[in-house]
């Protein structure tokens, strides 16, 4: 058990691979089926966002998806090497905010917005259901 990293070319067809990796890590971390779907969609959105940023900026460097399940929850970070953040689609941001327990857009290696961090916090098995 440990961090998992996936680097993929910034192409739309690669996002599905990233989703599969994210779900695999989330399942191993013990998330239930509802939250697996949240991880699948949110990580897919974050990766698609980076792919679109790279395509818009003609950046060919690979996008990094890093999943950490060693802490109290699950963390997914998507990092790209695009230079500027442009305007994020508000529908996508609403989805990300609604799906993850925490969502932050952070500076990346080459400019603002190049890192997106998502967190899911573990609840006890006897804890209340999330709605």
């Amino acid at each position: 058990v440990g961090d998992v990293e996936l680097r993929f070319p910034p192409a739309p067809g690669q996002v599905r691979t990233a989703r599969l990796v994210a779900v695999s890590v989330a399942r191993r971390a013990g998330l239930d089926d509802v939250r697996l779907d949240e991880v699948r969609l949110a990580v897919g959105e974050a990766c698609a966002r980076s792919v679109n940023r790279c395509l818009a900026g003609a950046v060919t460097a690979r996008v990094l998806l890093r999943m950490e399940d060693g802490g109290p929850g699950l963390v997914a970070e998507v990092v790209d090497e695009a230079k500027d953040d442009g305007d994020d689609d508000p529908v996508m941001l609403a989805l990300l905010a609604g799906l993850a327990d925490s969502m932050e857009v952070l500076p990346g290696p080459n400019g603002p917005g190049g890192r997106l961090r998502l967190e899911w916090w573990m609840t006890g098995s006897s804890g209340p259901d999330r709605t």
Partner: protein
Amino acid sequence: VELSVATRREGAHTIISVTGEIDVYTAPTLRERLNEVVANGEYQLIVDMAGVDFLDSTGLGVLVGGLKRARSHEGSLQLVCDQEKILKVFRITGLTKVFPIHASLADALGDGH
């Protein structure tokens, strides 16, 4: 194949049945099909999403685009979906207020529009 799209006429309606994953990679296929249908003069659209097991914001954007095109011709775009994980995507983004969403194709066809 990650996404398949089939269209058929039923009375005044055009039913677009979608199967697979609608995401940043496959959404252009659905966009093209919706554009073709509207260009063909068909404006009463029903997108049957019963076979869809993934929908992202790019897919939502395509559906909103289809709705706008249909409405620009006094038409409509209704959705058929009864899967909680897909409905949740519409709820989080507030699009349940924008699309008529039916649990079954029969309900959509019986909507009277």
